[in-house]
């Protein structure tokens, strides 16, 4: 019978094939918490006195980020605020929003729920009725970033923490390589560089944790999480790459780590050569930082007014 590599207990809950470790529930929980806190320290993602805004969807990744960062809040190293964006996806988003609120309340963390409807004027469902070409993720991503950036400033947050995990990050790397989007590659990293005034630094504390370990962690700790798939995710290119990476990881359990490590090594070189250092403007509509005269979010909103 298999026993825990750390304490010898017989009931193991995970076989970490990338390291050959087998761990019991208690040792796994402790191992993951320490690993995330160590990653935060090593990569200097957070410093004492930071006010961290957690982008809390209610899904497993962001709930785990909230709970682990709360240990730093309990030690009075940082302050936390949780923000949930309600994109307006009928029959799906309600549960996530409710579960997000439940987690924030249980920890006594200030929580704000902000909807696309109030901020953008339309729910994602309404946006998609009129949209023929773009997929939902494009709108979702653009508006979410736009809203989070504004709320971070309102709240005086110094960092925005997201739940991106190892699977998400290696998917992004591979997608951009395969599509030849070298410029997008320069923006992938554990921490965004605050090149422009008005952007709050984004950090990814779970960047080195595989998605399945996050799921195992939230189930092992009995955290309330929203485990459902977004109805708009569908058969995207990202989903295909995700399936491919998970499939190949079965036989090569360290492949996602080596993809990430290799990328992090060549990134400074890519950045040096391909980073667009073009000057940043201020959007004439909303005053947010923008690559052009009108930011992406406002160009979408303006196009609706003309319909």
């Amino acid at each position: 019978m298999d026993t825990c590599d750390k304490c010898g207990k017989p009931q193991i809950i995970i076989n970490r094939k990338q390291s050959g470790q087998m761990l019991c529930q208690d040792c796994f929980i402790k191992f993951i918490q320490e690993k995330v806190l160590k990653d935060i320290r090593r990569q200097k993602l957070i410093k004492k006195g930071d006010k961290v805004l957690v982008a809390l969807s209610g899904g497993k990744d962001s709930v785990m980020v909230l709970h682990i960062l709360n240990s730093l809040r309990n030690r009075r190293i940082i302050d936390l605020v949780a923000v949930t964006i309600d994109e307006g996806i009928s029959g799906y988003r309600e549960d996530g929003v409710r579960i997000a609120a439940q987690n924030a309340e249980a920890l006594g963390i200030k929580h704000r729920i902000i909807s696309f409807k109030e901020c953008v004027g339309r729910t994602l469902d309404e946006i998609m009725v009129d949209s023929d070409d773009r997929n939902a993720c494009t709108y979702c991503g653009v508006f979410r970033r736009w809203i989070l950036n504004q709320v971070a400033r309102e709240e005086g947050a110094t960092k925005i923490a997201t739940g991106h995990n190892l699977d998400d990050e290696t998917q992004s790397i591979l997608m951009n390589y395969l599509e030849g989007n070298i410029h997008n590659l320069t923006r992938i990293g554990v921490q965004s560089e605050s090149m422009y005034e008005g952007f709050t630094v984004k950090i990814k504390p779970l960047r080195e944790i595989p998605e399945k370990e996050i799921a195992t962690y939230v189930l092992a700790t009995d955290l309330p999480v929203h485990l459902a798939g977004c109805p708009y995710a569908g058969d995207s290119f990202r989903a295909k790459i995700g399936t491919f990476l998970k499939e190949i990881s079965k036989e090569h359990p360290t492949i996602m780590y080596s993809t990430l490590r290799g990328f992090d090594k060549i990134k400074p070189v890519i950045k040096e050569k391909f980073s667009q250092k073009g000057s940043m403007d201020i959007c004439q509509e909303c005053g947010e930082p923008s690559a052009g005269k009108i930011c992406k979010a406002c160009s979408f909103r303006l196009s609706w007014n003309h319909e």
Partner: protein
Amino acid sequence: MQVTVIIGEDEKKLDVNEGKTVKNLLQMLEIPVETVVVKKNQSIIIEEEPVEDGDIIEVIKVIYGG
């Protein structure tokens, strides 16, 4: 031997040969092992865990879209 399998709202009894593991069971059910976490009699277990007569196996889908 017989085991109870719970997948979401759905609960069913399954006849399984002796000597099978959770991984074998998932393969029978055509569920990709990398997208789920499995509990046996309410404890999380690994895919190499043997399945025994009377076990209650709960399959929790945790990974979507990839």
